[in-house]
């Protein structure tokens, strides 16, 4: 039996790890179901990466286009994901997103309005109709603040700046989690009947990224270590439009709303190059000439949409090709211009933070001149595999939601589908975690050895014999992933990464941290690197396995889609330091949903 008195210990029915949109929504639901719930987050409450989401939350409310409904949204999501999505998750997401958006409004969120006083919706890539509820270009802030305040008023216990390092198990079952307080460096133990992983993405393993320091894949690594499966890890979304200049802001996101609201992409010759990159799959619904594309902004019924708003994977690849062909801007991007179509007032009202961001960080006035943009590592479609309805992983009592999960987005996520995913599956994770906790019989027992082993390993870097700086190892990992596991991949480079990652892990074993345990960023980074290395390896192994190009996974050596790989997901399980890799068939879509894809676009 554990000597739990040794560490600060808390006991809950449900603990939620991560306090972005998914974690907050999960905690709210779990608490509403009567479960004693804790919310644990690495940063201060309200600072999670959701706060940076800009463009909007996708939901077929039908406020702007009454023709819109869940079936169209479902179809767009599946097509955007190149049909590799878990159909059931895509269905639930499309069906439940409108209720979740209205719920946010009922909790105090103030979305921009239509003329008749309803929630306004904006165009985004891959969505057939204007579908994104939004607040200018700061939708994520509105969402996180609304959820944060709702959670606080529910009286949910929040553990801020608390970093979970291991999930604890009682036999096969989840039993809690162990971690440290960033402020003091002291350890903390949580006993719980159910755990929700909602810890977000992995972008910090790449050099050019829109992600914040928190996005180190902790939940994905924790889940894998606890015995859950990872799936679709090869699919990384490189958002087509990140800032490219100046170097210190390279990667910071430029919302797709710029293109949704009228911005167009041009190369250094002034050409609207996206017309050269319309894939057959989207030909029927995409304008093939500038005149029609321009008319589409004013008359969406009688014209096809501009190719500037193709799904993100298509646009990112196109920009990458243009720059490689020597048609890039002076700083290695392409031009994104909204000033020639929209007046300054419109731009400042619709895109205030973009205006602000370019003005203050790049000395560019986007109401007068074009932005320079290029792809930036933005989102991982893969993650911990959970049940499509309950989000439970193969570890009983362990649930997963948000970017740490997988399935809803398939091979590529449409813009706007992330915020809706967070609240749809965050709610489901909280609901089923609470039910699980209620139904669970007997007491939860903590294995002393798991705790002690973790405690020892967390302190290993405080030693006098280490030589390696965690900052240097991190920089080298980012270079490795950027160079070898980027937008365009090939076997030789992926194999280079597979050799490099264990070397980096070995160096991490010789890392040395200076100073003490109190709020020590060098120590925190050394610990986060373990998650990043796990994720880096999982992504690289999956990318080697998928010998085709699809969505957020492009192989130079296998440039086309492949009929075999169209039917399988790549699934990983922990095996020692590495993983076993296997292919599993996609779940079969029911006939009534299949029909949606046979109708004309």
């Amino acid at each position, binding site marked *: 039996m554990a000597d739990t008195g040794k560490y600060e210990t808390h006991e809950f029915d449900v603990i939620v790890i991560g306090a972005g949109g998914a974690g907050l929504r999960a905690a709210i639901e779990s608490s509403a179901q009567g479960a004693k719930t804790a919310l644990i987050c690495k940063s201060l409450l309200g600072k999670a990466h959701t706060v940076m989401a800009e463009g909007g939350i996708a939901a077929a409310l039908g406020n702007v286009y009454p023709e819109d409904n869940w079936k169209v949204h479902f179809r767009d999501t599946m097509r955007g994901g190149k049909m590799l999505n878990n159909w059931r998750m895509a269905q639930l997401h499309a069906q439940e997103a409108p209720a979740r958006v209205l719920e946010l409004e009922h909790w105090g969120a103030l979305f921009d309005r239509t003329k008749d*006083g309803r929630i306004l919706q904006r165009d985004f890539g891959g969505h057939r109709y204007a579908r994104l509820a939004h607040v200018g270009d700061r939708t994520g802030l509105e969402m996180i603040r609304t959820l944060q305040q709702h959670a606080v008023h529910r009286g949910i216990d929040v553990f801020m700046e608390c970093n979970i390092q291991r999930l604890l198990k009682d036999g096969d079952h989840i039993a809690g989690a162990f971690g440290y307080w960033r402020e003091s460096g002291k350890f903390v133990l949580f006993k719980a009947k159910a755990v929700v992983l909602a810890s977000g993405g992995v972008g910090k393993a790449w050099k050019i990224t829109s992600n*914040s320091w928190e996005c180190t894949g902790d939940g994905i690594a924790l889940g894998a270590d606890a015995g859950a499966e990872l799936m679709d890890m090869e699919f990384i979304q490189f958002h087509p439009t990140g800032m490219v200049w*100046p170097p210190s802001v390279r990667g910071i996101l430029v919302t797709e709303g710029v293109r949704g609201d009228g911005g167009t992409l041009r190369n250094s010759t002034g050409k609207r190059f996206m017309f050269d990159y319309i894939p057959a799959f989207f030909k029927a619904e995409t304008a093939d000439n500038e005149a029609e594309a321009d008319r589409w902004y004013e008359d969406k019924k009688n014209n096809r949409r501009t190719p500037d708003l193709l799904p993100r994977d298509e646009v990112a690849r196109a920009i990458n090709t243009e720059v490689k062909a020597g048609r890039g801007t002076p700083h290695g991007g392409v031009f994104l211009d909204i000033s020639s179509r929209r007046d300054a007032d419109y731009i400042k009202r619709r895109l205030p933070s973009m205006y602000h961001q370019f003005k203050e960080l790049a000395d560019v006035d986007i109401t007068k001149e074009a932005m320079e943009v290029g792809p930036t590592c933005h989102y991982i479609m893969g993650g911990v595999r959970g049940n499509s309805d309950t989000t439970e992983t193969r570890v009983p009592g362990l649930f997963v939601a948000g970017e740490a999960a997988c399935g809803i987005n398939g091979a590529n996520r449409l813009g706007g589908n992330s915020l809706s995913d967070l609240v749809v599956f965050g709610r489901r994770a909280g609901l089923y975690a609470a039910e699980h906790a209620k139904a669970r019989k007997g007491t939860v027992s903590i294995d002393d050895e798991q705790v002690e082993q973790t405690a020892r390993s967390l302190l290993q870097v405080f030693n006098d014999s280490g030589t390696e700086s965690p900052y240097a190892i991190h920089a080298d990992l980012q270079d490795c992933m950027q160079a070898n596991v980027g937008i365009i991949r090939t076997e030789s480079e992926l194999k280079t990464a597979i050799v490099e990652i264990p070397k980096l892990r070995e160096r991490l074993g010789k890392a040395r*941290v200076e100073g003490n345990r109190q709020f020590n960023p060098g120590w925190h980074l050394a610990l986060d690197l373990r998650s990043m290395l796990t994720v880096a390896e999982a992504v690289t192994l999956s990318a080697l396995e998928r010998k085709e190009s699809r969505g957020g996974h492009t192989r130079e050596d296998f440039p086309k889609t492949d009929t075999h790989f169209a039917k399988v997901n790549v699934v990983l399980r922990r095996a020692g330091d590495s993983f076993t890799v296997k292919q599993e068939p996609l779940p079969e879509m029911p006939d009534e949903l299949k029909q949606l894809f046979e109708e004309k676009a």
Partner: protein
Amino acid sequence: MASTEFTMRVWRGDSSGGNWNDYKVASEEGMVVLDVIHRIQATQAPDLACRWNCKAGKCGSCSAELNGKPRLMCMTRMNTFEPGQTITVAPIKTFPIIKDLVTDVSFNYEKAKTVPAFKPKPVEADGTHRMFQEDIDRVQEFHKCIECFLCQNVCHVIRDHEDNKPQFAGPRLFVRLAGLEMHPLDTNDRLELLKSKAGLGYCNITKCCTEVCPEHIRITDNAIIPLKERVVTEYYDPVAWLLRKVRGKRKVAAE
């Protein structure tokens, strides 16, 4: 690429005390103060503590006092300083030090817990709410707040008077309360709270908060003054008092 050397004079220490440490560091075109702090961490002081998240002015984590001015480190370009100048980087002063540039801002989170929750009126027959853009514009301004707490930091009511903290919520909370009070759907009444527990009367509208807001929220003009007017009307205007007696109250006082 042109590189300029700066001396960064960073406050380092904890609740027991500390001192200024000088770091000579190169800065390249486009770099912001936060980049330079990261460079110091990576090369000279790996345990230098600072908070940050988004590096794009959206999360409000990296507040500090730069040459004495409260700023977000991620939105302060190095080229706004003279080359060769020594730049001081200090933690925000109003909150207790944890370590180096990290302060204990829990005051703000505790105050937030005391705000009576949003309480919406019932939905329309179709299950949704109707609101018009012109009715929400002013509240959307308040919702821009990124909780960097720079306004709390410069507010002299609490910056120099620790003893005022229990009975004063501060500009951030006034913006929050204004956002709730002016929300077209809200039915809660927080005027008693504003008058007594939140200490609205302590504010003598010096506008220090407005000047430092990185989101350019007109805190004093648009949030604090209208709230003060509401409190005056509620408690000190005899005509309004009489009308209320006759017509009844619009909102129900919060617990």
